[in-house]
């Protein structure tokens, strides 16, 4: 009985939060709406990242690449197509790119994959730059922006979709498969899991959402160019947020991304040259002392409370 009431109360809280998020824009300033939009953007990217990298342990540094692909899809198509359509195309483009890259590099050791994704962002940026300079002559594109309320609701919907997708995956047989790949890939293969296909597919799914959110956020900026669209710092931030929050449960990435994007917003304006320093130091501290992130800390506290006495965790 206790478990059931707990389940219902959690559900109740979530529904309440959802209602708050939906009515939010009516009662607060435009600045706050934009702030929350940015925070949700980071949450979406981090949640997407965790879908693949969180379970399998293959650390992807490609979020900036997939996000940027979405940005460009938007920039090129937004003049002629509707919002839902071109953001979907952005997502699909990222999906295809990830599928291709994954098929080529996920058969290799994790470190090679990471190195490759690290270079992917820079590669695409250079290539896009070269293309824009030499082929299309359009270095920098102007965009007809949309109002912040529309963007907010679009992002909110995407957030809910990613959350739902993450939840469904975690509780499906593929969640189990992804976990098995992360813990012992060879054994997973011998248990009947088509390791390569699962890796590539979920890498692509995670990229899809990054592309979708990239395509959506473009409508807030009025000008984009390769350095803006493909900014490697986004990849770094994503990894930092996921590690800081923890990846074992759904709330970890949400907490990690919320805290850091909030800090990013505040500190970037006040201390533009120092906030990256703070993030870097945080990375050091978290990796050495909090390897499971905020989640890990909460779990430990929870276990201690449950058992009462001091217990070795």
């Amino acid at each position, binding site marked *: 009985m206790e478990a059931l009431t707990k389940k219902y109360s959690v559900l109740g809280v979530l529904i309440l939060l959802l209602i708050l998020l939906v009515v939010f824009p009516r009662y607060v300033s435009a600045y706050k709406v934009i702030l929350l939009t940015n925070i949700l953007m980071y949450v979406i990217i981090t949640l997407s990242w965790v879908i693949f990298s969180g379970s399998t342990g293959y650390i992807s540094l490609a979020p900036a690449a997939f996000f940027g692909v979405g940005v460009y899809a938007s920039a090129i198509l937004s003049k002629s197509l509707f919002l839902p359509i071109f953001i979907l195309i952005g997502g699909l483009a990222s999906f295809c790119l990830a599928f291709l890259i994954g098929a080529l590099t996920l058969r290799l050791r994790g470190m090679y994959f990471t190195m490759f994704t690290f270079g992917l962002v820079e590669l695409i940026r250079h290539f896009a730059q070269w293309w824009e300079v030499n082929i299309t002559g359009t270095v920098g594109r102007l965009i007809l922006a949309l109002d912040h309320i529309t963007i907010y609701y679009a992002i909110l919907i995407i957030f809910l979709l990613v959350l739902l997708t993450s939840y469904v995956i975690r509780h499906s047989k593929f969640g*189990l498969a992804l976990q098995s790949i992360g813990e012992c890939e060879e054994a997973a293969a*011998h*248990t009947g899991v088509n390791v390569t296909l699962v890796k590539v597919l979920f890498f692509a799914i995670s990229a899809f959402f990054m592309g979708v959110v990239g395509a959506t956020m473009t409508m807030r900026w009025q000008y984009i160019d390769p350095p803006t669209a493909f900014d490697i710092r986004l990849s770094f931030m994503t990894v930092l947020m996921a590690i800081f929050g923890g990846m074992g449960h759904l709330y970890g990435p949400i907490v990690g991304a919320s805290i850091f994007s909030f800090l990013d917003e505040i500190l970037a304006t006040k201390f533009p040259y120092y906030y990256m320093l703070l993030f870097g130091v945080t990375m050091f501290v978290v990796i050495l002392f909090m390897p499971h992130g905020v989640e890990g800390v909460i779990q430990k506290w929870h276990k201690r409370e449950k058992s009462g006495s001091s217990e070795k965790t």
Partner: protein
Amino acid sequence: MAQKGEKRIFRENMRILEVEGVKKNFGGLAAASNVAFHAEQGEIVGLIGPNGAGKTTLFNLVSGALIPDSGVIRFKGKNITGLKPHQITRMGIARTFQSVKVFPKMSVFDHVLLGYLFGNPKCTKSDKTLKEVIEILDFVELSEMRELRSKDLILSNQKRLEVARALATKPELLLLDELMAGLNHTEVIQAMELVRKIREKGVTILMVEHVMKAIMDTCDRIIVLHHGEKIAEGKPEEVAKNKSVVEVYLGE
């Protein structure tokens, strides 16, 4: 292609596994040279030899973890050489590993569930599935520990878990790689019991072992490897008396 579960009438001594002329080199070192042997349906075949003889390599070749440089491997008459591990598992060959490869943070229950869901084509998380998982756990006597994470189990239970996970894929051929390694006397006897129980269910077993008692008592037939080559084959009593086998073991 023979689907698992498709009724196939086996004659009593149908060869379920055939390995012919298999070679595998690792940078100049021949881990397997021209190995040829077979296993008949329902047998328990032992694979022995000194360390480095190529036993685990052979398992890796059969399970798909490695691809032979030349030679053919046939399962139930079908050529499986070069197939990927997951394909081979789904066709009906399962294995355990010398260094126990469990999923440390996954529960016992989930291990078996994973095997069931992915080792059998078209499986979903239904009530029937959950029931069968529990049955498998009962079979290996791990039911009480179903919620525990595998890293919290003692070695002998981790080995049981590996076997349970393998059995969940409904194999017709089970490869056991040094199941008895690291087990104490009582645990060895329990393991031998389990192996016999598995054979009673109709599963053919190929086991690599160093624990001679287990091999002599359980196996119908023994194959001896040395430096990647088969040097002897036959019933346990015959092999025990074979001169070259004795030399190989004494010489070590």
